[in-house]
């Protein structure tokens, strides 16, 4: 039998005007709060003076789990949370219903010009069914976007892998946004308020494709 893997730890990262606590998916749910507490205690002085982005990755969130993070960590240590980052679509809904800021901290991005690098989200992973990324800037994914996963971006979306899930570029109305997929197998693409549907018989299926808006139409172009 395989030896137990080393459990991943909570990572503290510096951002522009905020700190980011990354909670890796490999950490069992019951160990998240103790690991967070440990990280918070180690960097107490830093965290006291700064606002925090809680990055929960693709972990499924439940009411109970969110409640425990709030009670055991956030309120317990007097942290100030700027936003919650999660790829779990159900979890995002729960957080929004409670009026909590979800996604990359957009307000901060515009306030702080130094933070321009935050505007492109580079994801070096695949998105599985049920996982969702929402981002106010460009999204670059090195991996697959599987059937049932979603990517919503205010800017461009590049999928450097197989795209089967739903992508929505220019979601805030920017029609100059584009979608690029290395291998296109999706049934729908959205840019701004336009959308187009496809099936496996479409000429774009399995190809490298660029989608853009021309006039009132969504156009597709095969890439070399």
């Amino acid at each position, binding site marked *: *039998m*395989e030896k137990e*893997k080393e*459990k991943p730890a909570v990572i503290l990262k510096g951002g522009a005007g905020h700190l980011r606590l990354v909670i890796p*998916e*490999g*950490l*069992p*749910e019951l160990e998240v709060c103790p690991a967070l507490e440990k990280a918070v205690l180690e960097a107490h002085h830093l965290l006291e003076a700064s606002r925090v982005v809680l990055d929960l*990755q*693709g*972990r*499924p969130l439940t009411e109970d789990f969110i409640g425990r993070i709030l009670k055991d960590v956030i309120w317990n240590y007097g942290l100030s949370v700027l936003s919650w980052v999660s790829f779990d679509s159900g979890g995002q809904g729960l957080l929004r219903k409670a009026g909590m800021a979800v996604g990359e901290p957009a307000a901060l991005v515009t306030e702080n010009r130094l933070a321009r690098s935050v505007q492109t989200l580079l994801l070096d992973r*695949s998105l*599985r*069914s*049920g*996982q969702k990324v929402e981002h106010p800037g460009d999204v670059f994914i090195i991996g*697959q976007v*599987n*059937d*049932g996963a979603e990517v919503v971006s205010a800017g461009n979306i590049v999928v450097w892998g*197989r795209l*089967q899930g739903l992508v929505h570029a220019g979601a805030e109305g920017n029609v100059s946004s584009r979608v690029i997929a290395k291998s296109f197998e999706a049934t729908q693409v959205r840019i701004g308020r336009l959308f187009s549907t496809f099936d496996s018989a479409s000429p774009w299926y399995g190809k490298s494709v660029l989608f853009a808006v021309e006039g009132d139409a969504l156009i597709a172009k095969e890439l070399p």
Partner: protein
Amino acid sequence: MDPRIIVVTSGKGGVGKTTTTANLAVALAKAGYKTAAVDGDIGLRNLDVVLGLENRIVFNLVDVVEGACKLQKAMVRDKRVENLFLLPAAQTRTKDAVSADQMLKLCDELRENFDITLIDSPAGIEQGFRNAAIGADEAIVVTTPEVSAVRDADRIIGMLESMSKSPIRLVLNRLRPAMVKSGDMIDVKDVLDILAIELIGVIPDDTSVVISTNKGEPLTLGDESLAAKAFSNVARRILGEEVPLLDLDAPDQKGFFGFLRKALGL
């Protein structure tokens, strides 16, 4: 070997979780490991019927976690196979009857008493699934070569990854090689491309499975079918043996009609 707890799950219903659990449990017990098959589907129990032990149930999982009886008392011993025990689910309760903490405690107790525990998870991604998976070390995801089942398996794998189950391995059930060949069914490779986890077995679609399920006699008790062989091989791989995948095309080539088919190039 350290005691192991493996959850058998899928997301989608009806893809063969219970059949897989029953067949693997029998094969593992026959290999000499003290094996517990736990029905995690509280309220919709099935594993007892598939194992053919439905008439011998006195207590169930909920009785154990509520402290109404000891674990040993609720375990139904299989008389056909030494080392095989079933912990049945309650039929008259719902998934809310058991909490995550109770399941963790139950798994600790199972670990003390059995070499290998297989937990048959209910379909879905809610509390019932979470309870079935929470105390397990490893997971076996069962899927069929259908787009809907693969998408649900993908969702479940994401959840199992975030619960730190390792390894998470795939059983591809009900494959029809002839349909794959004619392009009417998704291929093993396509499923693996999407799910990106280790394959631990491919089970061919076989009428023997339906017959055995209805009779309550898992194939691995002694059936000669290809599906029986495939399930036995999965059990051997669980135990760390390296067993090559079965050539599922083989049966078509056997016998007189097989010979004819081969000669005619069909």
